[in-house]
């Protein structure tokens, strides 16, 4: 009987759960020292130890939100231009199509970046570049003159440029964060057994 007590009882995982020896949940984990903002930023861009483990279970929400922010800036700039144009031509049509594609790929990119898909981190850079490229249409519109008055005045033109630059920067930063954290997660998962649901 004493021998049987010492035997490790293995329970099938499908139907039963075994209350295993583990770190005591009641242990006071609150003893982890508080971090300064600088430390938090450093840890965020260079995740180590537990921070890498956490990547396995949490999505890349920051990159996702940055992509949405970039998209919001692009839409704001896009809408501003289209509130003032008077000439609708072939170039306008191309620009609208361009905008739709940026919109669709941004949504897709945000979701895939959340799941640490490296290819979409690169796509985020491309989207940032395309937003900068769309500045050409803003310049084209700004150069239109009707009855000696600029269609898109200097102030609005400046606002649009700023919005596009901020938007592009958001896409780029999202991509950089995505690349760093995806790399960290990949390195961590290379040392672990595969688990269903692993994003990378």
């Amino acid at each position: 009987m004493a021998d049987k007590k010492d035997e490790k009882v293995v329970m099938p995982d499908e139907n039963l759960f075994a209350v295993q020896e583990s770190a005591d949940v009641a242990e006071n984990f609150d003893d982890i020292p508080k971090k300064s903002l600088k430390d938090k930023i450093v840890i965020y861009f260079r995740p180590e130890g537990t921070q890498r483990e956490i990547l396995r279970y949490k999505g890349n929400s920051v990159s996702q939100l940055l992509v949405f922010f970039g998209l919001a800036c692009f839409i704001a700039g896009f809408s501003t231009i289209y509130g003032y144009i008077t000439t609708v031509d072939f170039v306008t049509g191309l620009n609208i199509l361009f905008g739709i594609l940026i919109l669709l790929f941004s949504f897709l990119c945000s979701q895939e970046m959340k799941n640490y898909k490296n290819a979409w981190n690169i796509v985020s850079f491309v989207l940032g570049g395309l937003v900068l490229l769309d500045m050409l249409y803003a310049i084209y519109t700004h150069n239109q003159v009707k009855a000696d008055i600029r269609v898109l005045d200097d102030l609005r033109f400046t606002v649009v440029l700023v919005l596009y630059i901020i938007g592009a920067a958001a896409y780029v930063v999202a991509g950089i964060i995505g690349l760093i954290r995806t790399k960290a997660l990949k390195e961590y998962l290379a040392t672990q057994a595969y688990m269903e649901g692993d994003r990378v």
Partner: protein
Amino acid sequence: MATLSLKNISKIYDSGNLAVEDFNIEIADGEFIVIVGPSGCGKSTTLRMIAGLESISGGTFKIGDRDVTHVAAKDRDIAMVFQNYALYGNMTVYQNMGFSLILKKVDPEIIHKKVMAAAKMLGLTQQLNKKPKALSGGQRQRVAMGRAIVRSPKVFLFDEPLSNLDAKLRTSMRREVKLLHQKLGTTMIYVTHDQSEALTLADRIVVMSMGHVQQIGTPLEIYSDPNNMFVADFIGTPPMNFFIGQVKGDSFITESFEHKLNAETLDLLHDYVDSGKDVILGIRPENIRFGSEVHMRVDLVENLGPTSLLHGTISGQNVIAKVKGWQEIPSGEDRTFDFDLKSACFFTVGDIKEHSYRIRKKEN
């Protein structure tokens, strides 16, 4: 420390429905209390009042020295596990388990450590990135327990958590809930309608019926020393057999049989001897053995291996006897039995089972 004190707790709904009345109990730190009763008896309502999900109409509820009668649920430091799991379907297991700590703005590292510890304890480490729809019923219930565990609450509340599981899984999970209690040492209050679950898990059982507490005691006390006919009937499988009759001379006499009483039983029932008053004899199936006093027609034999259940009738009244060994008795055959009156209970005759009180020896 998490001692609980419930004094004169009652719940009256706006419609005037009295769901719970005069609920009193003192719960020690680390105790496992099971509230058991039939559907509609007020056990879930009582649990919800403890959780803060229902307001308390009357009485006081304290956790330690702190009066929490009118304190919001989120401030009571209590975690609850529901019958239907109540998991967030769009979140992974990891996110479900850590959600309450995220709301409290706990450091993500602390959340991670607590979730991983609970997941390891419950055998969920391989399921952390799955969503609830990809899990079995047992796994979902474990996630619900894990979500409660990570909060390190003072009190755990369980509202029939195993009711949605199949019988085999229920039995194994029951054992694991008990092990969990031993591991964590936290006060737990568990509600169930299954009396066998109550007998297995509890340090003490609260038997409820029609909004009232019928008896509070250890499983042994509840089983062997019921306060009234309701408790005697509700606890125990198979249920207790009841016979209504009178005490005449030195025998208990019913319409269908007569059974001699020993001196101790006669002493207990001396107010009823030759009085013409009815009294109810309650005898558990395992206290009926082959003998010579009572004739019973055996209609069905359930052979369970080391014991057998004999289903029969005594003058039309259904009776169950639990005897040792494998029995080969043809259906319809008459056999004679004896009642072990040392373990029998006698009750007064009330309008309902709850009012049929146990006759006890008067203390001088």
